[in-house]
């Protein structure tokens, strides 16, 4: 038994190394005093300094935050409704519609939305990106809410109704508070997915609506400086902080 355990642990360790070494390299090179991610020259903070003076990057970060916040909020409302409906009723169309955007490759949603927006003569920009992000976020919120619904004890709401509560009171005072962890987890997931999305944004972005991932893509493609490493390192740090925060706030949220 112990021999097998050791083999298992060793291979798992190797996989962890596979997961983390590449990211470690990105971080290390962000402090390298050379323009060309090749050999180690010396330690520096200058790429971070440059980054904070890179207006295009800051604008893109601002755009990303605007898009992620608004699409997460709207997707959370719509997704919560969908999740509750999917749990409560035997529906035919809605579950398919909610799951399909999750199941389809991103590029398909990107190009079909591009065709759609152009057909409507809509100019591409922050609004088109937000509309697109809401579309793929709804499903994730809905699933998270649906999962939480199934763990709520039905007798609670029934008891409330028996005691004369209106459906709205019942929802407001009982269902909603109990659902909150599922909704928060869904909202956070939507926020992360939106801020991370590259493929769909790539197709529906317009003038002056570059987001962080688009900016990183063009930097990676043109491959100029370790500023990319610096922004990557900062993003990883931010995510780490967010996750720790979430873990503190609602320990259950990460598990779902």
């Amino acid at each position, binding site marked *: 038994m112990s021999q097998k355990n050791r083999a298992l642990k060793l291979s798992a360790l190797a996989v962890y190394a596979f997961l983390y070494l590449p990211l470690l390299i990105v971080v290390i090179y962000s402090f390298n005093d050379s323009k060309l991610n090749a050999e180690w020259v010396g330690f520096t903070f200058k790429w971070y300094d440059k980054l904070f003076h890179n207006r295009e990057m800051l604008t893109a970060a*601002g755009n990303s935050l605007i898009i992620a916040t608004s699409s997460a909020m709207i997707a959370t409302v719509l997704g919560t409704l969908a999740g509750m409906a999917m749990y409560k009723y035997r529906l035919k169309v809605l579950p398919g519609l909610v799951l399909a955007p999750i199941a389809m490759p991103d590029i398909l949603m990107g190009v079909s939305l591009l065709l759609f927006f152009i057909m409507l003569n809509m100019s591409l920009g922050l609004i088109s990106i937000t509309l697109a992000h809401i579309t793929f976020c709804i499903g994730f919120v809905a699933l998270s809410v649906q999962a939480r619904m199934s763990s709520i004890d039905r007798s609670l709401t029934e008891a409330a109704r028996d005691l004369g509560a209106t459906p709205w009171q019942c929802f407001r005072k009982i269902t909603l508070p109990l659902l909150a962890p599922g909704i928060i987890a869904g909202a956070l997931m939507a926020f992360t997915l939106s801020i991370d999305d590259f493929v769909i944004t790539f197709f529906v972005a317009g003038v002056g609506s570059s987001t962080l991932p688009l900016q990183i893509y063009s930097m990676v493609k043109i491959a100029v400086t370790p500023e990319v490493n610096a922004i990557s390192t900062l993003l990883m740090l931010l995510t780490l902080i967010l996750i720790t925060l979430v873990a503190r706030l609602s320990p259950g949220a990460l598990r779902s």
Partner: protein
Amino acid sequence: MKRLLASIVFMAVTPLATAATQLHLFNWNDYIAQDTVAAFEKSCNCQLVQDYYSSTEEMMAKLLAGASGYDVVVPTQNAVQALIKQKFLLSLDKNQLPNFKNSDPGFLNRSYDPANTYSVPYAFTTTLVGYNEQQLAKLGISPDDWSVIFDPKVLEKLKGKVTVMDDAEELFGAALKYLGYSVNDRDEKHLREAQQVIMAAKPYWAAFNSSSYIKELTVGNIWVAHGYSSDMVQARADADAADRDFNVNFVLPKQGAVLALDNMVIPKDAKNKKLAHQFINFMLDGKNAAALTNEIGAGNPNAAAAEFIDATIKQQKAIFPDAATLATLETIEASDAKQRRLLNKLWTEIKIK
């Protein structure tokens, strides 16, 4: 949690609130000097916001997919022609462009825009071969011939060390030149011959690459790159600055190559037309135009810039071609829909096979 959300929203909205007047420029990557950007922003008290493209096709696709709101775009001559035909461009108000007189008459009134109604020359480049001097010398390969990119016998020694442009018109142009045809030859038989040449050479190439070959040459990952003259100037300067144990150089292949004249235009739906004219006028100023050559390494169609340009750059035939060299260079002409569809089909086949 509420406070967290509120602060996120606040952070998100701040950049909007502080935004000054903006000029949206859609330009080739690495095609304007940083100092020029700063100087213009100071002079107009505005922000210059840039988006980049690395091929004409990419730029056209973006514009035609409804990307409205750019104030100035820098298309190559054949794209200018296509954009005029589509009634996409604003007719320029020359009264707002006093520096227009600085343009070298040799670059004005060309067939793509006979009276320069819509466009003003910005800079020009040639598409040529950039190479690692030491490595090629070691192998005994001379880079001044398109065979360095297309001949499998030569490529055997360079396997995985060559990149070519990810751009149908440029790559077919080079292959057509290699075969002795015109870059504008749209005869299907000749195009198929060019396709065969490209297919035969493809296994030896590392990648189709229109954007990061500057870096790859500088680091030494790539020994031969098909690309724009201005980019090769950058690569050479970067390699020198990084104290590499090799030099990057460039040369026009003797069969001839593509010359691209890039122009400034204003789309009809530009949001800030007055500022757009102001920017064009600024770039036509001799000193600012000269920076395009001194900092970026582009050829200059501005007569007033001549006195500010570094003498060493002026002597390079690949950047400022003399009459004899000019005779071997061709500009790409706009093709009609049918020709374009054929070229795209052949190009897609190349990419897949």
